[in-house]
């Protein structure tokens, strides 16, 4: 049940793809690191507006919620317009949001400007960046994903001292103004996202009636890896098309038929569970360190260690995941890294003193990086690049709830018991559970996929089926003698369309 590596001749897997990876690096970095980096200004803003700490913390929460919750909207826009315009628009929106935040006169305006507008802009940055990697890479996709996701810790490490510097020199208003300009760099990242493969979608609509079935399957096989589970929904979709136009329209924008996809459902449930315990330990690491008597600077240094290890772990995980031993079983690797993460948290209460916490930070950084690097790669692996656009939108809005719930639940546990260890135990247990669930379910999924692949191959050997033609047509340049005369005009039409694709 591994990826059909040689079936997609169109994906560059390099070349301009690396520029796209760099753009995604910047974009993803801003999307993840910005809400955390902005926390430096909160004390001053709190004094300025005379509010309590929790009211200020809402700014960060609203921003995070909007970034994840606006996922589906982002997906719809990408499905419609492609990655590039969406990212550029997102960058502009971020810039406008922060610049207007510089002129705010009340905390409510801050919620809107920093929380909603900038958060929405970041959402429009995050999703398309992840999506376009799937469009540019197949063989080296895990590496590309790992490198792009490494943007988050790098940006965090850069933003934290930068924000401090801006704050010391310009106050919070001036800093917001300059940060708005810095966020405009997302537009630069967006400009790098040259459209590719978009014309393949138009190939679908232009195909003639006789070749429609065959051509659609050609396209799906070119674009996807797991062809067998998706063939069935594709065909049912085609049947529905003739009947219901509006359903098809919605599915064109946001593919709700994904909820019938077994792999997608497994991923969704596993990840929603995992995020319940994912972020809370980071939020509470520094307070926990101070609680056991470590001074502020050393506590902050723990987070830096975490970020540095994270930075290295992500591309490394990408390289490992790309190796021929791991790539076919990447879902197992992902489940393992989640369980490893959980195990770290469970062992944390045993860590005593500063050295213990440093060791914990190192392992936590490693595990965190591993999970993050493969977060989107595994989803791409399960649903394929074409449906990934909708999949990522649906997944992020589901994760949104648990991401927001995680730290407050941890905080409540800490307040009730007065001890941090219950929070760590809860996070660890949840993640080990999620990891085990994913492991078992993916084992089942792989077996089902293997079965379906066997059935499909058995059907293909049947000579009267039109699918034999598909096998031959995978090699564009080969002239196969068994192609009947009816397929000649079809192939020339395809070549003509190919010219159109290259010419735009």
């Amino acid at each position: 049940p591994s990826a059909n590596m040689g079936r997609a001749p169109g994906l560059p897997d390099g070349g301009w793809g690396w520029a796209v990876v760099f753009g995604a690096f910047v974009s993803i970095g801003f999307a993840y690191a910005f809400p955390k980096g902005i926390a430096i200004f909160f004390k001053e803003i709190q004094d300025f507006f005379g509010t309590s700490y929790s009211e200020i913390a809402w700014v960060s929460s609203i921003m995070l919620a909007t970034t994840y919750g606006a996922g589906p909207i982002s997906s719809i826009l990408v499905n419609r317009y492609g990655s590039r315009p969406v990212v550029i628009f997102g960058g502009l929106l971020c810039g406008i949001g922060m610049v207007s935040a510089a002129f705010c006169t009340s905390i409510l305006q801050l919620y809107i400007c920093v929380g909603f507008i900038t958060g929405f802009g970041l959402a429009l940055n995050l999703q398309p960046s992840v999506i376009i990697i799937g469009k540019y890479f197949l063989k080296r996709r895990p590496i590309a994903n790992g490198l792009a996701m490494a943007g988050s810790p790098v940006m965090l490490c850069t933003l934290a001292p930068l924000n401090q510097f801006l704050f010391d020199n310009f106050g919070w208003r001036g800093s917001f103004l300059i940060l708005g300009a810095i966020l405009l760099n997302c537009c630069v990242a967006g400009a790098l996202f040259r459209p590719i493969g978009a014309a393949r979608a138009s190939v679908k609509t232009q195909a003639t009636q006789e070749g429609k079935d065959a051509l659609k399957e050609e396209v799906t096989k070119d674009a996807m890896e797991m062809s067998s589970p998706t063939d069935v929904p594709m065909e049912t979709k085609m049947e529905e098309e003739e009947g219901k136009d509006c359903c098809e329209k919605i599915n064109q924008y946001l593919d709700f038929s994904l909820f019938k996809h077994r792999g997608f459902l497994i991923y969704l449930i596993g990840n929603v569970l995992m995020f319940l315990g994912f972020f809370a330990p980071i939020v509470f690491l520094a307070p926990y360190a101070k609680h056991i008597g470590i001074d502020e600077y050393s506590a902050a240094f723990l987070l830096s260690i975490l970020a540095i290890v994270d930075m290295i772990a992500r591309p490394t995980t990408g390289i490992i995941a790309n190796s021929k031993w791991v790539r076919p079983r990447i879902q197992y690797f992902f489940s393992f890294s989640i369980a490893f993460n959980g195990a770290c948290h469970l062992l944390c209460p045993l860590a005593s003193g500063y050295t213990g916490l440093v060791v914990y930070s190192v392992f936590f950084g490693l595990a965190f990086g591993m999970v993050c690097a493969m977060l989107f790669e595994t989803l791409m692996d399960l649903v394929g690049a074409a449906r990934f656009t909708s999949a990522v939108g649906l997944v992020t809005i589901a994760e949104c709830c648990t991401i927001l719930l995680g730290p407050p639940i941890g905080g409540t546990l800490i307040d009730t018991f007065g001890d941090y260890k219950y929070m760590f135990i809860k996070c660890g247990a949840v993640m080990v559970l999620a990891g085990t669930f994913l492991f078992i379910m993916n084992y089942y999924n792989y077996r089902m996929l293997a079965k379906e692949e066997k059935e499909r191959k058995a059907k293909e050997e049947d000579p009267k089926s039109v699918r034999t033609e598909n096998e031959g047509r995978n090699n564009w340049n080969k002239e196969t003698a068994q192609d009947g005369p009816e397929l000649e005009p079809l192939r020339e039409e395809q070549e003509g369309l190919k010219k159109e694709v290259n010419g735009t």
Partner: protein
Amino acid sequence: MPAAFSGKRLGLLLLLCLSLSGGSPADPTMTPQDASQSQANSLTKMQAGLNGESSEHMTTTGTVNWQSQGSPSHHLTLGHNVSTPGPDLTTQEFKQAIKANVSSVTFVEYEVLLPGVSGTSIEKNITLDSATGIELSCRLDSKYSYLKNLQMTWKRGNETIEHINKTENSWGIQLKILDNSKLGSYSCTLKGEEEISAIFHLQVPKIEGKEKPIVSYEGDTAVMICKSFGYTPIAWTWYRTNGSEQIAINDSLLADKYVINSISANVTHLKILKLTGEDDGVYWCEAAFELGKSKGRLKLKVLSFMVPLKPFLAIVAEVVILVTIIFLYEMYSKKKCAEDEKEFDQVEQLKSEESNGLENSARHRKI
């Protein structure tokens, strides 16, 4: 000897050090443990160990040892009034003795263990905010009891203090600090073959201002906050520095410019509205305690909006330039591709025409 010492030890081993280093700041994210500790601190300051229960509580928190520049560590004990002889009194009797003796002032004892003949001087900072009775004593470690002809003098500045209470190995003086004039540095000097001394600095609580300047903009509002940790001042006053003078800020007089309010007794806010370039400078917040006044320093910087605008425009320009370069490069590479494609397609077309011709002829032949 041990019995006498245990009498004092019956008292309390307290974390006064914490109070002197500022205590636990009013952190909004205080954990339960921090909260209980700060509670303990406030108890020490106000009650000075008269409450037996609190003494128990404080004993469990442990001792804090001071170390100064290589001299051996010494303990600070906060105990009961020991001016009456009979150090073997129980805690209850002590309490009664104090209540009978003294008026409403609290009474604290500070003791320092002299380091021996190393010659370095020990200094202690003691923070007082309200009228207190104090006993300062310097004790010599029992290992030095072999030293003969020891003479202890207590001084404040140049003025020698009489009435030294001498016990086995310790010399103490009692002071009633009722106003500012009694604060200062008190030193005990033990003269024998060599001179050993220790100094107690009696001070009002320190107020922390902000080291980094507060940056604000013209036309905007600035909020300056001063906090007092642990001690509650009687009143707060704000001053601004005009040249070399300090002028008090009267918020009732200039109500549309300055607003002073205190959220709690330990915290004061100064809000300056409609900032101009003239408001730039140093500000002082002064806390008045029973025993004196203490100041905190804050600096305000007022900038015009042009200042951040320059980096902003620079970055925007950089973004625009980069985007333009990327798009131009893309158009250029597409043109190149299109030209190559045209050649490729022409070749392909020739090929397909040939093959079509061949097949057509083949079909004709078949038919």
